[in-house]
């Protein structure tokens, strides 16, 4: 393909060498000048052979550690969500010495708890044609052919064990009258493979993992550090050997050393400030590891969910998701005329309403995939036809109207199906969705990108493993509904415990002391950073910077990305970051609970991540999954993928602040599946 390009480079970047992308001479790349091409990533440790045998073979080949040696080996796990708590419990049961860290007051608070819909597993209890291979196929296809097939197959393979394990723990899944487990269909797939516990599946699974973890804490195999935040990774003699953590209550900066470190620290959706993530969800653990040599893969892949409750004012601190099952019966519309946007929707005549999804996508209507529904909502609001309160001069909301459904089915039937969601909506907005149409707007929900890991879930730093949303491996460019819980528990219960033993078989490694140069360096960088934030004494709060960064990311690296917008965003982020370091105001001391100080460190890392996300999005001049490039669409405005150019994982290496990151490509090769372009027309 040939494109015309704006060749202006930002001031901070020097001119580029010939053939800077590593591509054929004469070809361009939108991100030229923002990065340095690096060597391809060729060894993913994915086993060869028939795909169905790979995991069995890897488990067999992974060396064992005998039980007597396990207690001499120490493991640090950061994060206690599904991926962290399940790994900590399992490795504790196996007899290793485990230390686990979370920033909340209890491991049970981790944000896995907020997942609503369910967990997929290829049990085929409905005898409807499901199988491990079909779950594998659906996941690769749903990820728009941007995930590594060996990893995804393994995920589908161990999915069935997860359900067995959770039931044995006492997770109260929904059941049928015969006493067996109920399943439902979820996220547009044609089989019923989703296990659920009403609308609180994440909560029940996390409590199961949490209880297993607490059992090991009681048994003495796991030490739990709550209200502790990892602020630096210790890499000594080429291996991850520990972390620097801050006790958030006393402010003490602590060194924790181990033979191996696992990050299960979740996703970074809060780079957008407003998201459905928890307030404390952050990228710091992963980003600190990235700065120490762990590659960050596909950071631009973000999932934006179409059915969230809109922003009500500039005070908004987070967004709340409502199940997208609402789109089964609700009709989405906005007024045809801008003049009607502040009217009572019930007084807007039928002919003055634009049911835009039904109009543009007559065959799928309101049930188009998440990304299409989200983008269409943004477009009508950008046109000035949004509804609800004006925030910063724009109305960002569209109606989701149940009037027809109530006429057709009756109020009681609608209440039976959606009662709890209607109640939640009413509590947050103060409006009654039975009589006034709901207002919805898309929100950032999940990130598919994360630290690059090989088949063993090991990062590019030996001895640093990454699990759950924090890694990149299983969802490609888009995650299917009910698959986040599956991946978190697959990694923690059934994958990591096998792969980590192969690494630990070489341990225990030579002990290092607090005086090791790598430890001293890590500690110093943490204390210097804390001192810096406390000493700036500027004029703006941390939150005000975070909000502004979020606006930039949402505007230019959100639902639709363009070359011009992304380049502008990079400039804006760099400017804002400089101002932050000079002008942020953090009061108080480091010797006590100081929530502004905690946030300052997280926002500082979000600046650097945000810039890399924009560079990654700039480089990927194709539309795939959750990543939509304005320049890469069909005549009908559909996403257009370019497998010839972009069937790779973009793994970015940190090169230093204000240095150009290095791009390493891992080619995606499919042997068990054929790549296809999707269509919803």
């Amino acid at each position: 393909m040939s494109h015309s390009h704006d060749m202006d480079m930002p001031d901070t970047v020097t001119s580029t060498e010939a053939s800077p992308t590593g591509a054929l001479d004469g070809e361009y790349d939108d991100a030229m000048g923002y990065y340095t091409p690096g060597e391809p990533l060729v060894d993913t440790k994915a086993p060869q052979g028939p795909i169905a045998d790979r995991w069995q073979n890897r488990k067999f080949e992974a060396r064992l550690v005998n039980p007597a040696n396990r207690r001499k080996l120490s493991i640090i796990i950061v994060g206690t969500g599904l991926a962290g708590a399940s790994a900590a419990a399992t490795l504790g049961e196996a007899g290793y010495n485990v230390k686990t860290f979370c920033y909340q007051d209890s491991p049970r608070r981790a944000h896995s708890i907020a997942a609503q819909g369910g967990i997929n597993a290829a049990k085929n209890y409905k005898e409807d044609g499901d199988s491990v291979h079909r779950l594998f196929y659906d996941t690769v296809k749903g990820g728009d052919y941007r995930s590594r097939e060996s990893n995804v197959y393994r995920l589908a393979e161990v999915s069935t064990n997860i359900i067995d394990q959770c039931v044995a723990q006492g997770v109260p899944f929904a059941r049928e009258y015969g006493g067996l487990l109920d399943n439902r269909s979820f996220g547009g797939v044609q089989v019923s493979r989703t296990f659920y516990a009403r609308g609180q599946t994440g909560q029940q699974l996390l409590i199961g993992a949490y209880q297993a973890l607490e059992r090991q804490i009681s048994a003495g195999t796991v030490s739990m550090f709550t209200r502790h935040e990892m602020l630096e990774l210790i890499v000594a003699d080429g291996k991850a050997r520990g972390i620097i953590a801050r006790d958030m209550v006393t402010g003490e900066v602590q060194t924790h050393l181990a033979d191996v470190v696992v990050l299960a620290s979740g996703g970074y959706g809060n780079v957008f400030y407003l998201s459905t993530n928890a307030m404390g969800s952050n990228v710091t653990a992963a980003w600190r590891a990235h700065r120490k040599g762990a590659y960050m893969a596909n950071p631009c892949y973000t999932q934006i969910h179409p059915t969230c409750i809109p922003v009500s004012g500039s005070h908004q601190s987070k967004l709340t998701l409502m199940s997208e099952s609402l789109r089964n019966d609700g009709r989405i519309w906005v007024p045809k005329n801008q003049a009607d946007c502040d009217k009572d929707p019930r007084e807007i005549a039928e002919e003055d309403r634009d049911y835009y999804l039904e109009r543009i996508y007559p065959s799928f209507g309101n049930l188009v995939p998440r990304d299409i529904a989200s983008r269409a909502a943004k477009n009508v609001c950008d046109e000035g036809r949004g509804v609800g309160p004006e925030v910063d001069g724009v109305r960002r909301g569209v109606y989701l109207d149940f009037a027809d459904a109530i006429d057709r089915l009756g109020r009681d039937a609608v209440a039976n199906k959606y009662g709890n969601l209607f109640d939640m909506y009413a509590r947050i907005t103060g409006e009654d969705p039975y009589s006034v149409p709901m207002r919805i707007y898309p929100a950032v929900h999940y990130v598919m990108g994360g630290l690059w890991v090989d088949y063993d879930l090991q990062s590019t730093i030996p001895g640093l493993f990454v699990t759950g949303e924090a890694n990149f491996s299983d969802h490609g460019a888009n995650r299917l509904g009910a698959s986040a819980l599956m991946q978190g528990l697959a990694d923690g219960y059934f994958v990591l415990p096998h792969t980590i033993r192969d690494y630990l078989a070489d341990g225990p490694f030579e002990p290092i002391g607090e005086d090791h140069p790598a430890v001293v360096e890590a500690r110093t960088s943490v204390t210097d950073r804390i001192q810096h934030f406390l000493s700036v004494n500027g004029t703006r709060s941390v939150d005000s910077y975070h909000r502004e960064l979020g606006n930039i990311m949402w505007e230019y690296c959100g639902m639709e990305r363009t070359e011009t917008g992304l380049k502008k965003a990079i400039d804006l982020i760099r400017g804002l970051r400089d101002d932050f370091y000079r002008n942020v105001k953090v009061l108080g001391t480091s010797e006590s609970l100081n929530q502004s100080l905690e946030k300052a460190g997280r926002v500082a890392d979000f600046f650097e991540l945000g810039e890399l996300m924009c560079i990654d999005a700039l480089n990927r001049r194709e539309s795939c999954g959750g990543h939509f490039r304005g320049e890469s669409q069909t005549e009908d405005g559909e996403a257009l993928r370019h497998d010839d150019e972009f069937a790779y994982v973009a793994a970015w290496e940190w090169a230093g602040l204000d240095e150009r990151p290095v791009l390493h490509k891992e080619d995606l090769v499919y042997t068990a599946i054929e790549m296809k372009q999707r269509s919803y027309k």
Partner: protein
Amino acid sequence: MNLTLKIWRQPDAVSAGAMHTYELADVSPDMSFLEMLDVLNEQLNDQGEDPIAFDSDCREGICGMCGLMINGDAHGPEVTTTCQLHMRSFSDGETITIEPWRSDAFPVVKDLVVDRGAFDRIIQAGGYVSVNTGSAPEAHSVPVPKDDADRAFNVATCIGCGACVAACPNGSASLFMGAKVTHLGLLPQGQPERDERVVNMVAQHDHEGFGGCTNIGACTAACPKEIPLDVISQLNKDLRTAIKHGH
């Protein structure tokens, strides 16, 4: 709306605390209660005064991290979590009193933040099924009657926020404990450890300094997940049975 806020300030666990009064103008009825405190904190930060520390995380009513005594009620006037309480539940000109959870077993860490580690230690004492990863039987090998599964789910929705303790005149965690004992006691997987579980959890509860149940029912009235009072009957029944079995 304009509000007068009386808020408990306490620099750390060992220092004495006191109520401080703040004025906050232009509060939107659409704000959540915690967003109202965010706005106050921005104002304090601008004025050079240390922002008020309070806990919250998911802000959608499920993680259990938030929890404040608002005008003397745990989580305030509605049956919900503090993060899901909105300012439209208050009126212009109102004075609102905000305190941390009241309980000896939940010591104050700073301002409105308390230490609920005692809840984790109660779970450590027995709030689990002992099943190692990989040793589970096939999920359909043990059917569970739907009514039992549904009821187990209902009581398993406890979010561990501590409102029950804060509301109780005797600082009891019986509702929290009863919910877990009932959840696991209703399922076949919970039977082998049933006696031991309740005995050990109750012993830990008492050791932590929580009080005994005094049959008031303030706990269930304050519970944002509406855990019913009869889980405490189940708790007592399980304890009596375990003692009869010689525990």
